């Protein structure tokens, strides 16, 4: 069908575009790849160098206080972290944690301002919304290819791919949170002579804080879900044992690594949730 239309070489175009981007923006990618990569590895090494017991104590005590002095999460964290340590996955846990933390931080740094821009301009919203849809629906594996082209392999392309996959919720929730601020409150801010920035920082962001934090929580969870995929391009962490278990059909090893990811996910989820649930 439609033989009269020659096959459109989209794939070739994208290849060319990728190549062009790599060559043209090497001056950006190279320092990111090297300096930023070193920085992240340094953090992962630093976390790895801290005796596990200290981190465990910090996490458990923190869990106790952020949940309003309840023992549930603290107990779960203690058991969970001991389990991971016991399975010899502590270094991987620290790498994964570093990757998720960095990807989430960058997502927030990028996502919140973009969300604010969207909430302030209908045009921006109309342009950004489909891009967000694209970012979330495009299979995550597809990001890996240009990510490798830009940053070769390792932690940095993993963070890059996570960033693309995990940023949309923060953008969407920031936009939503600001748009939900009631008209009357916005009018009140304006009627007393606030500048745009004053309105944003003294009214809209404080009002939207809970919603934005819910978005950030989603972002953290999505970044975590990229761990296994990121390990396919050489990002160290808990994803690695999963991938190698898959290749060697070792159900047991895969399960242990998977459970470790779940434990980390639950701890991070409860931690971020407690921030926006606190009044």
């Amino acid at each position, binding site marked *: 069908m439609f033989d009269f239309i020659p096959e459109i070489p989209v794939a070739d175009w994208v290849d060319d575009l990728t190549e062009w981007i790599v060559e043209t923006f090497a001056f950006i990618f190279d320092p990111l790849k090297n300096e930023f990569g070193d920085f992240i590895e340094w953090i992962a090494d630093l976390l790895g160098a801290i005796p596990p017991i200290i981190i465990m104590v910090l996490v458990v005590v923190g869990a106790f206080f952020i949940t309003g002095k309840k023992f549930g999460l603290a107990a779960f964290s203690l058991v969970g972290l001991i389990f991971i340590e016991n399975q010899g996955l502590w270094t991987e846990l620290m790498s994964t944690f570093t990757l998720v933390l960095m990807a989430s931080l960058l997502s927030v740094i990028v996502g919140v301002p973009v969300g604010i821009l969207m909430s302030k301009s209908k045009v921006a919203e109309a342009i950004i919304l489909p891009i967000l849809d694209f970012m979330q629906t495009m299979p995550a594996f597809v990001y890996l290819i240009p990510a490798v082209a830009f940053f070769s392999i390792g932690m940095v392309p993993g963070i890059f791919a996570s960033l693309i996959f995990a940023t949309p919720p923060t953008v969407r929730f920031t936009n939503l949170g600001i748009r939900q601020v009631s008209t009357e409150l916005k*009018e009140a*801010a304006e*009627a*007393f002579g606030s500048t745009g920035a004053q309105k944003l920082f003294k009214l809209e962001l404080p009002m939207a804080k809970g919603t934005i934090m819910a978005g950030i929580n989603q972002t953290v969870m999505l970044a975590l879900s990229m761990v296994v995929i990121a390990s396919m391009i050489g990002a160290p962490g808990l994803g690695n044992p999963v991938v190698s278990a898959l290749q060697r059909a070792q159900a047991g090893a895969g399960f242990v690594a998977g459970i470790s990811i779940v434990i980390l996910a639950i701890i991070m989820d409860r931690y971020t949730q407690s921030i926006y649930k606190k009044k």
Partner: protein
Amino acid sequence: MPVIEVKGLSKVFGKNVKDSLKLLDEGKKKEEILQATGDTVGVNRASFEVNQGEVFVIMGLSGSGKSTLIRLINRLIEPTEGSVMVDGEDLAQMDKENLRRVRREKLSMVFQNFGLFPFRTILENAEYGLEVQGIPKEERAEKAKSALEMVGLGSYVDQYPNQLSGGMQQRVGLARALANDPEILLMDEAFSALDPLIRKDMQDELLELQDSMHKTIIFITHDLDEALRIGDRIALMKDGSIVQIGTPEDILTNPANEYVERFVEDVDRSKVLTAAHIMHRPETVNIDKHGPRVALERMREEGLSSIYVVDGHRNLKGYVTADDASDARKKEIKDLNEILRTDVPKVPLDKPMQEIIEIIYDTPVPIAVVDGEKLKGIIIRGSFLAALAGEGEVKSNV
């Protein structure tokens, strides 16, 4: 002297603003324009002046454009046409920076649902207007506290809005508006969200505050009773246009058209009309010149059973009854002082009818309406009931 002069202020919502304005010029109605251009006329050529220290009430039913009008004044909504002069500056033409300055220094607004920031304490809310001006923390806390004390919330500074009742929250809204000491207060249905008893308290309090502040207040309401209670002048709006501007008495006694008439039909007149509106010219005798004989003669002429007694300056002395005067004549008493009764039911000129009701049923003689000591008029039961029913002519005898 007018503080605010609004001239030809219009707002058309929609895409064919020019066409719609042309149709307005041709005198087309709101619905006709909606059909022709798809635009909604919010406010149609509103013009009025508000004087220094005046409470100017804009009232109308929902959809009449009153809330749009108040927002055109401080430009929360951009006017389509017209001017808003405040102290000789046209807000409608102003650049953003000047507009901010005017909003900060001259115009404050109080909102229907209070518009308080829930994450800020009462003090921080009251401080807001000062905070955005960059006033140092201590100074603004001091001003905000004194504003809060003015509205009776001095001890609630550290609470949050949701810990206060509606009435108290609106006091905070009022304190926030007063904290930066503006010339003009814009109050958008400020008391409409409160229950009736609290609303009345707030109205009283506003009037009390106004006695000492002398702000220029533009007050929006859909409640005619409220408008009549607090307004020095009232503008009635319908379909975006102002249909009548006048004092409460003007509006009640001379409705400009059928719409206004129907509006005021249901008003509880006893709350609005005062002794001065319903009193009649009294028959009197002069205590220095006349004796019981003259008094009796006057009463007979007018068919009265009692008559008020005044002195040469019309100061009220008391009254005499026909029975006493007749006895006195038989006993040949010449001096009215001997039969004078002084248990006079007296009310001042501005006493509302509502409060006269209690008196009028307990008294055998007409009620004396006095201005200080001077007798200005009398109220008899028949004319009182007629006024209450809104029948007959309600005239001002002042």
